[in-house]
């Protein structure tokens, strides 16, 4: 580590401890407020307003602690249950939601011990370097001015100037120890916070169930809509054309004896209709599962796609092996959607696709040199990608500052999401 690095980290940690001390003091106030809110519940229904309001403050405070802990290398997930649809910002339903969530009580249990640990460790983090600074700056001065019975560090009291000057190296040592230890002390604080502020195994499972129900509902909806579209396309397209084809040929059969010329015209027409039906079927098939994807896998299909993109598109990929069909398909359509967004909206001149596999994670990046400013909230394209990937526990992140460039990063677990892997990822 560079010499300046540990000094900077130390200073940052000392600064953090000042913040923690201030916040810890607020803990006591919050604790008292919460108790008041609880007690006041039977009184005039005051609690129906107070409990949600104070809880919001407590959660704000706990979230601050989680953020600080994350900064010191201890990430803590939010444990709270999702607010039910019928619960408003205040009132009975909101109270019920809050009071039945174990995370509320764990937050409450944390407030006072968290404050005590925070104050203790915070003051320690602050005191040691400050004592060092005192040794370096103040003591030689005081001794020079002839201040009497006073001491520093291991020398107590100081009799002579030369003894007083010894406080200088001692002060430097205290300062160094204080700065070097500060980040570790902060980490201890963060680990303590993690004890009560992180979700229990139960809460984690619960959150996972909620997440899975949402993504399953999304997937089922999307699939139903997709099947409906296919049914309609077949019904109005190929099926109708085959009926007309049969009719035309039947008519030609009737006419062939007495009016061969008309029969010939009808047959030519029948051929036209069959060609149109084939074109429609081909488009439909490409939308369901592109044949080139079945034939060549993700790598080949994306290369084939890039070749026909309106934007010149470079493809880099180290995934030559075949993946599970559903994963392959989700990945392909996500990339296709991202590329088509780049073509239509970005005003870019070139685009690129990078596909990389890290053991069991497939990482895909689609970027362009366009004007940026893409908004995942607008339009259905990016939402569609999120939904497609969500069914496989995949994720999408978008970076698109105004002025560009836009980069869509997508990740998919490569092993299909079997119950076994799902459980192990929860308990991990």
């Amino acid at each position, binding site marked *: 580590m560079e010499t300046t690095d540990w000094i900077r980290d130390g200073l940052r940690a000392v600064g953090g401890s000042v913040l923690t001390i201030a916040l810890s003091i607020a803990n006591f106030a919050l604790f008292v407020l919460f108790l008041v809110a609880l007690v006041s519940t039977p009184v005039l229904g005051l609690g129906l307003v107070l409990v949600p309001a104070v809880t919001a403050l407590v959660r704000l405070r706990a979230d601050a602690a989680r953020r600080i802990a994350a900064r010191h290398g201890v990430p803590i997930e939010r444990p709270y249950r999702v607010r039910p649809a019928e619960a408003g910002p205040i009132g009975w339903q909101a109270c019920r939601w809050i009071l039945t969530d174990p995370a509320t009580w764990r937050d409450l249990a944390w407030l006072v011990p968290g404050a005590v640990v925070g104050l203790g460790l915070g003051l320690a983090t602050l005191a040691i370097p400050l004592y060092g600074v005192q040794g370096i700056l103040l003591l030689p001065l005081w001794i020079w001015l002839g201040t009497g019975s006073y001491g520093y560090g291991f020398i107590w009291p100081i009799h002579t100037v030369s003894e007083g000057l010894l406080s200088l190296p001692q002060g430097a040592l205290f300062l160094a120890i204080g700065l070097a230890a500060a980040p570790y002390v902060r980490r201890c604080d963060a680990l303590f916070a993690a004890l009560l502020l992180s979700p229990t195994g139960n809460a984690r499972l619960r959150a996972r169930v909620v997440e899975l129900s949402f993504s399953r509902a999304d997937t089922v909806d999307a699939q139903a809509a997709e099947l409906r579209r296919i049914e309609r396309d077949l019904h109005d397209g190929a099926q109708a054309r085959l009926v007309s084809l049969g009719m035309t040929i039947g008519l030609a059969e009737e006419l062939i004896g007495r009016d061969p010329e008309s029969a010939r015209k009808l047959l030519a027409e029948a*051929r036209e209709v*069959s*060609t149109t039906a*084939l*074109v429609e079927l*081909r488009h439909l*098939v*490409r939308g369901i599962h592109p*044949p*080139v994807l*079945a*034939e*060549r896998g993700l790598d*080949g299909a994306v*290369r*084939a796609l890039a*070749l*026909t*993109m*309106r*934007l*010149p598109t470079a493809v880099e990929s180290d995934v030559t092996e075949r993946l599970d069909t559903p994963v392959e398909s989700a990945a392909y359509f996500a990339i296709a959607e991202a590329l088509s967004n780049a073509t239509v909206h970005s005003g870019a001149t070139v685009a690129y696709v990078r596909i990389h596999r890290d053991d069991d994670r497939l990482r895909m990046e689609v970027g362009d040199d366009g004007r940026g400013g893409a908004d995942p909230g607008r339009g259905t394209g990016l939402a569609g990608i999120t939904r497609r990937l969500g069914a496989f526990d995949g994720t999408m992140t978008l970076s698109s500052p105004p002025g560009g460039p836009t980069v869509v990063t997508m990740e998919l677990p490569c092993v299909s999401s079997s119950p076994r892997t799902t459980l192990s990822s929860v308990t991990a």
Partner: protein
Amino acid sequence: MRVVIAEDHALLRDGLTRLLEAFEFEVVATVDNGPELLPTLREHKPDVAVVDVRLPPTFTDEGLQAAIAARGVVPGMPILVLSQHVEPLYARELLGDRRGAVGYLLKDRVCDVAEFVDAVRQVADGGTVMDPEVVARLLDRSRPLDVLTAREREVLAEMAAGRSNAAIAAKLFVSEKAVSKHINGIFTKLSLPPSDDDNRRVRAVLAYLNA
């Protein structure tokens, strides 16, 4: 003219055989799977082979792979590849050896019997026949061959479809002389050095596919 047909659907295989025999082709062998195709081609050395891209046992692109492999063994063996869908990527791979005598068509084109038989003959004669859909999908892009004029791009598209100068002239309603002027313009702009004309046409089409 001796033909080998590789197609796994019995209906289509029989249909193709009947169709080609009606036009005086001699179907010397038919194959219904990928692994048998290469040995059959090596054994019969047909004047032209008509091959489906997707064949058993994997039902991926075995026909295409076998065609490319066969041309590796017997350079320039004329092969017409048929498929339910066309990909410019596959076209590029087929044309990769720059020898011509290659066709890549949608199966739909079989419906237009006269034109299909014409395509088979052209491939047998060493020509290059690309499906209009391949060309259309490439034309859809804005990049490319911006050096070419709109007319030259049209001519190039027709060239890719395997049409002769006379046929192009008729299709675009211009004189044959004008067509050869456009073609020379294309060759110059794509800096294709003079060589025998067919080979140059293939390379122009390749340049088109790679743009």
